[in-house]
């Protein structure tokens, strides 16, 4: 219990926040328990009372999130619901969280900790204040994710914080959108709110409103979202105060700390009961090509960065992530930070193992990391660009999630196995130009955010809409998007033959087709996405493949007006992949885009057609020729699988019955095809040793692309352990590096 002292700080018991923070850290390092709690007296004596308090607070943050949605005008809040609300201790540790973009939950708490370390208390933190931050040198994932954080006072003492995060779609960067490809350092990324005071007495400061007004291309949306966030915070704050009045302040403070420690212990126990200890490994690569955007010449280069990652499940149930051997950070938007990785870890744990509703700081306290400073995962400058700071979180992070699934599988909990979908590979990107009302217009469409085909499970196919960062996904209604955008949807369809092949296939991703509408001039920026372009993510499991990656097509000077007046067909989906409806039906100039970080070469106008496949790359699971023919038949009937790939990928023969309009599997022919394929594999597969000798020769002679030599050399130079493993595997000299030509 806290000792009451002469009132000097604003924290509970008259302590300063800094004193509370230091004490918490000291107790953690002394005891290994949160706040030094070795005994959990409140939960031991009256567990239901603690549960009741927890349920009350949880209901408050969930209701807070809905409040924001009623106030906001932005489709990504109202429709897609890209927001989340959480409650914190005075030191910034998360107690509980709403649904939504929960990757930010730990990270809003890091802003609180940073404010304490910076001495905000001396500058003044008062009841009714709000602090706003989107500064990724402090914490967070990228500039559009704006955090609004409000202190909670009880009888003059600060007893906690409530935070709301909302993803914005325009924050005044060097080019429109909120994660533009051309923003290569901090200074080109637009509005930077470095945990600044934005409100007093629950009212936004005029100075703050003016800053927003002049800082964004869509200030109304940005400001209204702040008001929505403030309303959520006030609502939660008042609910917390009601709970404190009922339960008593001493009980509340004791309970909040016990909730964290309880969850920490529960997490270790869950790991021991559900996984198998050991070591996992996988590399992630991130490709950045800034040669076709507005980056300054010194930044306009192409590069590939390697992020090897070891994942250990330790005997005591702790997780350990080791990023040794990671390559260099750079002047581009796709670096990552320890903060971003921590956000990903807590988000993934919350959905895959800590999904009891009790996930909080305690979950994260059961995870350790080695994140090398001055590398891609921890830039040695605060000036790095951060538009796609979740490069590792959303690529390597979901691989890590899949590895945890592998551990579930080995332990027998096959129903918990969920493989990944890496979302550094497919977002629409930004639009800029004139809108359909004649206004200057800049926007990022997040239509697909979260709605990608998900990775397969160990015993069933992946789902149609999934993303690690959006547990509850929603594409939003087309009609609402059309209010904002100079585009009319011609169709939203799943793309046939685009899944991750396997005994269990990944979910299918969507293809949207748009008629550009009433704008004289529109440009597309792919934004800092599709970062796994030449090298697909290593996420296939047990013999399954990664799925088809994203692409888009634009037809300019399109003859759609003519086609419409003649009542001839346009394009609503793909049609036949070999000759798509878009190309077959519409005349004009075709531009195809498969890479991220670029401006689409052509400008569009009213009547042109844009088609985008939101193919985040997802995992198939198991040998594709072991697929149950009944599952393949279902895909054939639904038009998701073509008969050619049904034969070539699954070795399943089927015939279409014109009468019933259904497919029928030929079991005899299927068995023959499968038998034949197994024999072919035995004939064409070479012993690993033979492959190793050949490949070693390639490496020793430097027969690989220059970008890869640079990539390997960075990792060989920076790493401590990984370089030895690389050289020993290839039996190369201890000082081996590639000659860069």
């Amino acid at each position: 219990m806290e000792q009451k002292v002469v009132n000097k700080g604003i924290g509970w018991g008259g302590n300063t926040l800094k004193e509370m923070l230091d004490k918490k850290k000291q107790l953690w390092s002394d005891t290994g328990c949160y706040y030094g709690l070795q005994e959990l007296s409140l939960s031991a004596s009256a567990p239901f009372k603690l549960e009741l308090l927890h349920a009350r607070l949880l209901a408050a943050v969930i209701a807070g999130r809905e409040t924001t949605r009623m106030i906001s005008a932005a489709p990504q809040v109202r429709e897609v619901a890209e927001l989340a609300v959480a409650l914190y201790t005075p030191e910034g540790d998360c107690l509980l969280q709403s649904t939504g973009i929960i990757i930010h939950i730990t990270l809003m708490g890091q802003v609180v900790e940073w404010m304490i370390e910076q001495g905000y208390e001396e500058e003044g933190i008062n009841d009714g204040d709000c602090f706003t931050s989107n500064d990724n040198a402090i914490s967070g994932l990228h500039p559009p994710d704006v955090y609004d954080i409000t202190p909670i006072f009880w009888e003059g003492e600060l007893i906690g914080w409530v935070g709301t995060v909302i993803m914005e779609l325009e924050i005044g960067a060097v080019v429109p959108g909120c994660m533009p490809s051309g923003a290569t350092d901090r200074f080109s990324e637009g509005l930077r709110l470095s945990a600044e005071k934005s409100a007093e007495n629950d009212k936004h400061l005029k100075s703050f409103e003016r800053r927003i007004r002049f800082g964004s291309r869509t200030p109304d949306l940005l400001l209204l979202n702040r008001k929505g966030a403030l309303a959520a915070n006030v609502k939660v704050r008042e609910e917390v105060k009601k709970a404190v009045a009922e339960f008593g302040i001493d009980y509340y403070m004791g309970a909040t700390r016990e909730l964290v420690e309880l969850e920490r212990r529960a997490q270790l126990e869950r790991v021991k009961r559900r996984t198998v200890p050991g070591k996992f490994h996988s590399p992630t690569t991130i490709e950045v090509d800034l040669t076709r955007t507005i980056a300054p010449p010194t930044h306009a280069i192409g590069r590939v960065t390697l992020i090897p990652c070891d994942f250990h499940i330790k005997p005591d149930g702790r997780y350990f992530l080791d990023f040794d051997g990671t390559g260099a950070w750079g002047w581009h938007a796709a670096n990552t930070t320890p903060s971003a990785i921590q956000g990903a870890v807590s988000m993934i744990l919350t959905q895959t193992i800590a999904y009891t509703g009790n996930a909080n700081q305690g979950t994260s306290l059961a995870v350790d990391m080695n994140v090398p400073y001055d590398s891609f995962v921890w830039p040695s400058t605060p000036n790095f660009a951060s538009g796609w700071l979740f490069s590792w979180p959303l690529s390597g992070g979901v691989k890590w999630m899949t590895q945890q699934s592998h551990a579930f599988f080995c332990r027998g909990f096959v129903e918990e196995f969920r493989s990944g979908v890496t979302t550094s590979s497919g977002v629409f990107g930004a639009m800029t130009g004139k809108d359909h009302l004649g206004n200057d217009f800049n926007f990022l469409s997040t239509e697909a955010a979260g709605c990608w085909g998900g990775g397969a499970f160990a015993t069933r196919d992946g789902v149609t809409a999934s993303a690690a960062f959006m547990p509850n996904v929603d594409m939003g209604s087309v009609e609402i998007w059309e209010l904002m955008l100079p585009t009319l949807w011609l169709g939203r369809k799943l793309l046939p033959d685009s899944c991750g092949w396997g005994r269990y296939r990944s979910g299918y991703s969507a293809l949207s087709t748009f008629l550009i509408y009433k704008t004289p001039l529109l440009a597309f920026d792919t934004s800092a996405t599709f970062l796994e372009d030449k090298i697909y993510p290593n996420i296939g499991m047990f013999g399954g493949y990664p799925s088809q990656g994203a692409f888009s097509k634009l037809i300019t000077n399109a003859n759609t007006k003519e086609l419409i007046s003649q009542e001839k067909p346009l394009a609503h989906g793909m049609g036949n992949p070999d000759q798509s409806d878009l190309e077959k039906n519409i005349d004009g100039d075709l531009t195809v885009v498969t890479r991220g970080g670029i401006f689409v070469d052509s400008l569009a106008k009213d009547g042109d057609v844009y088609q985008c496949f939101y193919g985040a790359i997802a995992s198939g699971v198991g040998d594709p020729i072991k697929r149950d023919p009944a599952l393949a038949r279902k895909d054939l009937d639904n038009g998701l699988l073509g008969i050619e790939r049904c034969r070539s990928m699954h070795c399943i023969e089927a015939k279409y019955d014109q009468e019933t309009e259904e497919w029928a599997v030929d079991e005899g022919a299927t068995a023959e095809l499968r038998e034949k394929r197994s024999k072919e594999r035995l004939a064409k597969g070479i012993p690993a040793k033979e492959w190793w000798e050949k490949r070693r020769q390639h490496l020793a002679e430097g027969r690989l692309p220059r970008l890869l030599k640079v990539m390997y050399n960075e990792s060989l130079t920076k790493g401590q352990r990984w370089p030895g493993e690389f050289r020993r595997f290839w039996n190369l000299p201890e000082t081996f590096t590639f000659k860069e030509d």
Partner: protein
Amino acid sequence: MSKISYSKEVIRDLIEGKLPWSQTKSIISGYKDEDRFDKYVEVLQEKVAWQEKILLPLTHELYIVQKGSDRIVKCSCGQEFGDYRVNWKLNALIHVRESEEEVKELYPYPSAPDAEFCEIREFYCPGCGTQLWVETVPFGYPLVFDFLPDLDTFYAEWLKRPLPSQKEFTDLTCDFIAQNWAE
């Protein structure tokens, strides 16, 4: 609270993907059954034709088994891949998809891995021709050792029944290469 437990038949159907979704869903949402691992191994042991005791299932087809005093990786078809601490891929057949046609078969649309940058490595069982794993990694990346379990900690500390003999928890892949492949 009484302990949750499922029958062997339920576990078998669950593994084979035959359990009705409503039942799978309730298993996902419910408290976990503490005897799962033993039932799981029991069901799998009945499915394979060989006698060695399964210590740990690794994938749909691969298992770590006790063979004499050794612990080896074994395919459901009976093919053996050697010590479990050596990446089993070293004893598999490899095929790398390199030609445009082979890549296009997987990825029919404009985006696809670039074979100069990315190796699409397929690993086949030399015994039965099953595709055991697919790696998509940068050209020249070492074979990925996906999972090396700490079996002794698992049995002794987590399951509270130590295995008869101890093995050091260490990756022996590079030792294997040094001893068998490097000339």
